[in-house]
């Protein structure tokens, strides 16, 4: 699904933040990516949806080499990767329901209103369907972002610190949704620095934990 071979990346031609990374993301698996703040978790995720290009090494997503992708190819790739961004990224002038349905709109697909209602119900946002994003709480925004990320039924779901600003209860609610997605066959990669969250999730799902530190990627030990 995602193959990285000796991938390195540095911003603006500077020193490499990530170096010699080799990774193979297995389909259907739940993955955690952890590491201290500033270690490059967000950067690694951005590489996965072609928001950044590796400065060295070779990286492919769904078998497509990132270096050979044109702008339309990148758009098509992003329709197969659902992303929950750290800062959620909504269009504040559109109601929640329209924001969630936005990927259908921009990809030229019709909106099945029943399916949309079901999806909003799944993330427990049925009551907020007509609300504008600025009026949502942090947890509601993250759940809305998750609904938008999966509306095109992507093969891969990425979440960048989805619980960063949430309390424990809300974090576990969101994590439950991600685990449900994985159990339905989706490959999930969650970047988080919260080790307690990882431990709690591992009690419910077989997860592979990747630790990023010093620009390198390691498989975490049994302590996690």
């Amino acid at each position, binding site marked *: 699904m995602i193959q990285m071979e000796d991938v390195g990346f540095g911003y603006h031609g500077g020193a490499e933040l990530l170096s010699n990374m080799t990774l193979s993301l297995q389909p259907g698996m739940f993955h955690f990516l952890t590491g201290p703040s500033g270690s490059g978790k967000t950067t690694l995720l951005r590489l996965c949806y072609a928001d950044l290009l590796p400065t060295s090494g070779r990286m492919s997503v769904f078998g497509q080499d990132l270096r050979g992708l044109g702008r339309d190819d990148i*758009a098509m790739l*992003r329709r197969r990767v659902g*992303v929950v961004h750290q800062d959620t990224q909504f*269009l504040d002038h*559109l109601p929640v329901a329209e924001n969630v349905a936005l*990927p259908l*709109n*921009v990809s*030229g697909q019709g909106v099945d209103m029943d399916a949309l209602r079901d999806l909003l119900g799944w993330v427990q946002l049925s009551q907020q369907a007509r609300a504008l994003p600025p009026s949502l709480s942090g947890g509601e925004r993250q759940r809305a972002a998750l609904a*938008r990320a999966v509306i095109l039924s992507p093969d891969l779901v990425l979440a960048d610190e989805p619980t960063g600003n949430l309390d424990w209860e809300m974090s576990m609610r969101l994590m439950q949704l991600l685990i449900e997605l994985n159990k339905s066959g989706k490959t999930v990669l969650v970047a988080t620095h919260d080790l307690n969250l990882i431990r709690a999730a591992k009690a419910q799902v077989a997860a592979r934990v990747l630790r990023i530190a010093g620009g390198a990627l390691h498989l975490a030990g049994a302590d996690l």
Partner: protein
Amino acid sequence: MRRTEFRALNLRALWQGLLRRDGDKGDRIVPPTGYTAQLTLFSAGAMAFLAVFALALALATGRLADRWSSQLAQSVTVRVSAPASEQQARAQAVVQILQATPGAGTPRLLSNEAVAELLAPWFGPDMPVDALPVPALIDLPITGAEFDAEGLRLRLEAEAPGAVLDDHTEWRRPLVSAANRLRVLGVISLLLIVAASASMITLAAKAALAANGQVIRVLRLIGARDITIATAFVRRFTQRAAIGAGVGTLIGMGAVALLPGMDAAGGFLTGLGFQGWGWLLPLLIPIVAAAVGFFATRWAALNMLEAVR
């Protein structure tokens, strides 16, 4: 703009841009904008208003050049200079030559009264023509294409010394030249108006795109193609350019219709306006404005989107 994107610039998209309601599903991804919409409408309207007058000028000067050319070319004048005692006889001889000229109508020897009337603007109505060495004037209408002015000139030189043929070329050339230059100026004005409109719409589109940088970023992140994002902006600006230009054109046409009539104005302003089918030509201005809005906005949008990954 890349070649593949240029291929997507089709008439269907332009047509949809004109017909789809503002606020349709595709449009809603872009937040409603206030002042750029008003500015685009106003600019398109003002430019269309000016374009109506530039078009009227170009058409009127074209008609003027044609009229001057055709009216002056329909007749020639023969001037016969001779001592007073011989002038009448020589004039009659010239008339006989002219009667036998192929392509010429019946020559008319102007009477002393007619000559006095022609000279009145310079010498006043009481001038005694008989007392002045005024040449005899013969007006000769041209009735056929076989009329050969140069051949007639040579024949008069040989057979009627003192007779000079004037085919009005010296008068006609600068007048027609002036009218043609005015027509060129009218066309240049139209081109400048189109270029200025394109510039203004491009600037307005770029301002709208810059103000919606975050929207564009979000749309790219969720898998929107450049052409999808660009189309949302293009549709708006195409509509605004067409509506603004439509209103400006109607006001301009109304103003032209209210200009003094041909008979009343006279002089240079004679015929400034539209005639017959010419009234349909200004209706092309909103269509051209829509096309300008379409291409200018799409060019601006696709260029700007290149900066967003």
